[in-house]
């Protein structure tokens, strides 16, 4: 026997409720690059979204992790040669990131920083602080951290900093209405 109109409506309503609840007003972002320009884009989007009261979750993986290192900190003890090499050669913190284009041994980077200041664009450090104030979550990929030999004590002090794996990202991305890969 086929469903009555009422039964069909009931089913539809149930389905609608499920769909409505399945995607949150949430932005999940993979930040992979350690390019200054891409990092700027990631943080401007994150802070903008948070200003619009969207929950923001950033997942830092691979090269991007070095951007979250403390600027002036000695390398953690107990690292092997490869880890020491990564630790020395990769940027230490947001200030040391390079432009993906026109970096020109740092000249381009300093020029863009000057222009940003002139145009009242917040620096990456300021954006990170604002993101923290607005409750943006940052999770660091532990697998990448192990690959590069980074230790937790080398990471910046950030209020909502966590450590996670791919399943956390996938679960969060699955319930988000927006996902980005930068």
């Amino acid at each position, binding site marked *: 026997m086929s469903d009555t109109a009422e039964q069909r409506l009931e089913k539809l309503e149930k389905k609608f409720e499920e769909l409505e609840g399945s995607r949150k007003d949430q932005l999940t972002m993979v930040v992979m690059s350690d390019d200054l320009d891409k990092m700027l884009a990631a943080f*401007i989007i994150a802070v*903008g979204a948070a*200003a*619009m*009261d969207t929950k923001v979750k950033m997942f830092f993986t691979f090269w991007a992790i070095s951007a979250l290192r403390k600027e002036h900190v000695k390398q953690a003890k107990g690292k092997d040669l490869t880890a020491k090499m990564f630790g020395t050669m990769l940027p230490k913190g947001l200030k040391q990131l390079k432009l993906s284009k026109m970096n020109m041994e740092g000249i381009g980077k300093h020029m863009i920083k000057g222009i940003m200041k002139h145009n*009242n*664009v*917040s620096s990456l450090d300021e954006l990170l602080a*604002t993101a923290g104030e607005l409750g943006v979550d940052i999770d660091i990929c532990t697998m990448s951290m192990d690959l590069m030999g980074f230790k937790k004590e080398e990471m910046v002090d950030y209020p909502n900093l966590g450590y996670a794996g791919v399943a956390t990202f996938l679960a969060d991305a699955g319930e988000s209405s927006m996902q980005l890969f930068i």
Partner: protein
Amino acid sequence: MTTEELTNLKADKSVDARGTSCPGPLLAAKKAMGEINSGQILEILSADEGTKKDIPKWATKKKHNYLGTLEESGYFKIYVKKG
């Protein structure tokens, strides 16, 4: 709202975000909106052209009522009624 109506509008709070660039004006608007009551009017001053388009989008999302924008020389005055 017409330009004349906007010009005669009395805002309950005004926030000057002309010293900031994207997403500064949005942050300033969000903060200021938290300090007024429903039905009151917020004026946002911004020198960033993008804000003109951003504020209405934000207002729609947050169920505020975008009233309109006045163009001054070198900046914009944007009016939003809190929802």
